[in-house]
């Protein structure tokens, strides 16, 4: 476990000096960090608790809209609106989960798509609340400590902090009692219940943490884009991207979602000129290959191999 913390600290240090080394590639790095954070947050519910959600774009949208509408229409500073978004996201996750957690496996997944689509239609049609289909522009932002929140550099450090914070949370969860409860529920709900775990409560907690963290990233995303519209930010494909990033990297592993983000955002950059707007092709091909040949993901398979070898060694004495 200690080595995970050392890796995290090392990566964060690397992240801090990155803008000095590659000042021209900040936008890619921001995208990468946001996806790493979102996928890690998704994984708390999707990987550790085993409930595959294809509706996480709703939480991105929620966070983004709180920040954008807050600054553009109500003059609320982004840090306050992000705090409100976190509370709102946890509440949304609570309601959403209480409604749908009695559904199992694929049915839960289908219900998340349906709810996310309904939320998207609300964001498009309720202009008084969200600015409607045309979207919201962020024109001015306050300058805390003289920092310009519009600058790429500041956006980058915000995204870095978000990704690192999310990974840290997952590390803490993975070794906590709660983390073991999550895994127990994922493996077998009946056995989990038999050992005194309430699966619904555990899943609800996971969904609330996951949703709130995703909304946090959404708020930073809104500051980064400084323009949001409901068609893209509540879009089913964004949910799919977040989920697939985590699954390709490896569900229920600490570093899997980050590796998935690196792989996907990286290859997206490389192939961007080749495929132009058809960038989701990479997701499609990767997920097919991973599910067929590496069902535990790119990090999950070797991690399992190492674990099994360690057990075998111990068993041999």
């Amino acid at each position, binding site marked *: 476990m200690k080595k995970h913390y050392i890796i995290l600290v090392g990566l964060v240090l690397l992240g801090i000096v990155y803008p000095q080394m590659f000042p021209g590639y900040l936008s890619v790095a921001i995208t990468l960090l946001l996806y790493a954070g979102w996928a890690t947050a998704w994984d708390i519910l999707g990987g550790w608790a085993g409930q*595959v959600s294809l509706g996480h774009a709703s939480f991105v949208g929620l966070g983004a809209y709180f920040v954008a509408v807050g600054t553009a229409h109500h003059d609320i500073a982004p840090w306050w609106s992000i705090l409100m978004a976190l509370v709102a996201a946890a509440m949304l996750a609570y309601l959403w989960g209480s*409604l*749908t957690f009695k559904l199992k*496996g*694929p049915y839960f997944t289908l219900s998340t798509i*349906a709810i996310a689509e309904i939320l998207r*239609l609300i964001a*498009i049609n309720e202009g008084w609340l969200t600015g409607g289909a045309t979207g919201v522009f962020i024109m001015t932002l306050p300058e805390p400590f003289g920092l310009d929140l519009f600058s790429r550099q500041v956006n980058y450090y915000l995204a870095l902090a978000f990704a690192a914070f999310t990974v840290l949370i997952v590390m803490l969860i993975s070794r906590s009692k709660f983390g073991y409860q999550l895994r127990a529920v994922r493996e077998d709900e009946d056995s989990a219940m038999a050992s005194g775990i309430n699966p619904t409560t555990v899943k609800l907690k996971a969904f609330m943490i996951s949703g709130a963290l995703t909304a946090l990233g959404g708020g930073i995303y809104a500051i980064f884009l400084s323009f949001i519209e409901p068609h893209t930010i509540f879009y089913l494909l964004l949910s799919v991207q977040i989920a697939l990033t985590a699954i390709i990297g490896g569900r229920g592993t600490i570093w899997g979602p980050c590796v998935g983000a690196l792989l996907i955002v990286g290859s997206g950059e490389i192939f961007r000129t080749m495929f132009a707007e058809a960038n*989701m*092709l990479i997701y499609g091909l990767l997920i097919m290959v991973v599910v067929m040949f590496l069902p535990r993901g790119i990090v999950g398979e070797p991690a399992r191999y190492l674990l099994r070898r360690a057990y075998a060694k111990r068993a041999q004495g």
Partner: protein
Amino acid sequence: MFDYVSFMQNLSNGVLIGGVYALIGVGLTLVFGVMKTINFAHGDFVILGMYCAVLLNTLFGWDPYLSLLVAMPLGFLTGAILQRVVLSRLVEAPPESSLLVTLGLSLVIGNILLLTFGAEPKSVNVSYASSTVSLGEVRFSLILLLAGLATMVVIAGLYAVLNHTELGRAIRATADNRLGAELVGTNTRRIEAVVFGIGMALAVTAGVVLIPLLFATPTFSGAIFTLKAFVVTVLGGLGNIGAAIAGGLLLGVVEVMGASYLTSDYRNAYGLLVFLLVLLLRPEGLFGKTVKRV
């Protein structure tokens, strides 16, 4: 003031468009019934059918209904091959795997279409596009009527195959009890390939039938059709063909009625709302077995 004529008009439109939804849903539910696979690429198969009609129309000037002759067998073959090459590897894997693979397949199909045909919507112009048939004061659009008719013919054909042929018996047996079917000598691997082929052929047919009505766009519309197919099948109950037809009709009517009597902004939401309600309130009746409550 309640307007009887416009109510009947909406009802008939709803039933006709619902017939096409039923056709899409039946393919999905048949595949689920036999393979226990939720096919996320089903809507993209519909779009493939649309583009097939567009292609044959621009190349040879074929009428969309003529292109069914090519599209259906092609859809069947492609489906059977896809099942053999991709999905048959996942029989032992957890149910999510096939969902994820078909989700990947959906992205691949959509984006390949985007690369080949470009992003602008495509359609086929037919001479009878605005013709109507009147029955009393209610007018039926000829295209919708033809779509409804084609749907009925195809579903009747499917029903006949399932209930009156040896192949149909084998399919029903595999859906019922896979092991039992194998014990009495059914080649379930072959049945699965055939069923996936039939499912794809049905989706492609729906796409061809829809093309005079709707525009084909490569990426987003596939997801919409997949969602509609889910709504249809869950409304009726996954794995149950008769119920999928009822679900399709219900979805069509709910959408058209909701759009004309409430607000058309939420046209796509009405179906989803009903879908959620059914999923949450009557899950045990819809999935064939009791869902445990925690």
